[in-house]
Structures are given as C-alpha cells and as structure tokens.
C-alpha cells in the first residue's frame, strides 16, 4: 500500500471525530472549524469538503445549527452537537483512547 493512500484513508476516517471533538464544549462556525483543522492538525480538509460534511452530520442528526449575527457583517452558521452527537462523541473518544493505546503498545513491543 502506498503511504499517501494510507494517509488519505486515515484522515478521512478521523475527520469526523476531529470535527465532533471541536464541537464538544463550544458551538463553532464553518470557517472557524476549517481554520483550526488547517492550522493545528494533520486533518487537512478543504472548504469544498468541510461544508458538505457539516451538512451531512446535520442530516445524520449529530449536529444542530443556528444563525448568529456577527461583527463581520454577515450572519454565521454555528454548529453544535445534538444530544445524540454528544453521546456518540464520548463513545468515540473512549474508543479512540483504547485504540491508540493498543496500537502504541504493539509498536513498542515490535521494536
């Protein structure tokens, strides 16, 4: 398997988790999420992917949205976790913790 392909798959699988985690304690708007993901993480995402993905998460009932007036002069669409989303993200975080621990252990043992 090519490295780039594997990286693309891993990113895709973890992007949703990254987004949901960002919304865990705070409502955020699209550009804000995009900027955090662009800056601080390897979860590279483009605007052409992020907005449709937010729309899908909303359709799936994991996030809710509301329009808020802003100082930029244009209202912003803020996203927050729904009840179902909150429950799911906690489960995902728990799973991720176990998963990464196991994997790190395997890597250590394999040295």
């Amino acid at each position, binding site marked *: 398997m090519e490295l780039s392909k594997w990286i693309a798959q891993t990113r895709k699988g973890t992007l949703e988790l990254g987004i949901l985690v960002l919304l865990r304690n705070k409502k955020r708007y699209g*550009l804000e999420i995009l900027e955090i993901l662009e800056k601080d993480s390897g979860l590279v995402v483009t605007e052409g992917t992020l907005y449709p993905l937010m729309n899908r998460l909303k359709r799936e009932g*994991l996030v809710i949205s509301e329009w808020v007036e802003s100082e930029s002069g*244009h209202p*912003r*669409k803020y996203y927050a976790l729904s009840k179902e989303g909150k429950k799911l993200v906690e489960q995902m975080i728990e799973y991720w913790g176990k998963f990464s621990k196991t994997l790190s252990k395997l890597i250590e043992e394999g040295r």
Partner: protein
Amino acid sequence: MKELSSEVKNLIGEYLIKLKEVLRPLPEKEREEIVLEIEGHIEERLAQFLKEGKETDVLKDILNKLGKPEEYASEFVTDYLLSKGMEQRSVIKIVKGLLRWGCSTLIGFFYAFFFFVSYLVSISFVFIGVMKPIFPEHVGLFLKEGSLEGFGFFTSASFDPNTQEILGYWVIPISLFIGIIWFIVTSWLLEKAIKNRFGFRRKPLIH
C-alpha cells in the same frame, strides 16, 4: 470592512447565482442556507487575505478552493436525494441520487451500475412470467437433445423440432417468485448501501 470593487462583487454574485441554480433539487430553505453560508465564507476569507494580494486574485483563489458551483453542490444534492428518497420511499429521488453518486465517485459508479443491472434482472424474471400465458410456445426452460438451450423468452425456440420446453406453466410461478425475491434482495442491499454512505446513522433516516 473595506468596500469591495464591483468586479469582485460581480464574480461573487455570479458564483452564488450559479450555485443556487445547481442546488435546484433541494427545498428553497436549504438552498438559501447553503448559499448564505458560503457567501459569508467568501466574504470573511476575502477580508482575511486582502492584504496579501490583488483583490480579484485572492477571490479567484478562494473560489478555486471551493470548486466549481456544480462540484461544490454535488455532495449536498446527492445526500439530499438519497436520504429524502429513503425517508419518503421515493423511487425517483433514489434513482436520481444514485445517478449523481455514480457520476461523482468510483464507489458510487459501482453501486449505480450494480443496482441498475440487478433490478433489470429481477424485472426480466417477472417479464418472463407475464409473457408465458401470452406466448406459451416461446417462453420456458428449453432443452435441446438433453442439454440446456436457454431459459426465458425466445422468438425462435418453438420452430426448432429438437427443442423441448420442460416446465410448462410452472414457468409462471417459478419466474415470478425468483423475480420478486431478486427484487426484494436488491432493494435490501440498496438500503444498506445508502445507509453506509451516511456512516454514523443508527436510527431510521429522519430529518
């Protein structure tokens, strides 16, 4: 915020009008929200990057990252058609959604092709069952000198003296049964494929 030049305003306007147009399958309210959200995105990004270059270049870069309106809208429309289609049990929406999915990704193409062929097979079986009473000589399971010649509807089968039809009117219930079962299994697989697209959903599709 600095006043934008009319050239930039026109370019944004063009993009948004085109986007709204290609989002046509969606309900008015959803279309407006998608357009409004992206309008805000474009304006904020412009304000951020304005010092870095010429206004029109900055804007073109922003629009490039979004993709053409058709590309940008594609996911929204496919998601809408498939999820609403499932919710309303609307064959038209599901077919349209599948076709769009088929045009956008390889996996979508595979699904669209597979389900098209599979439904065609199930309809063919039903067709055979329906045609038997109308053209009894031409429909059935045909053997020629002990080996299988064919199953189905043949225009010339009965004219070959060595060919024998062995099922008789049993063809009707058998092919109708296979056709209906095939249809149900295909629909079940289609539902799974669509649910798979919406990865996290556990509950039935509600919006």
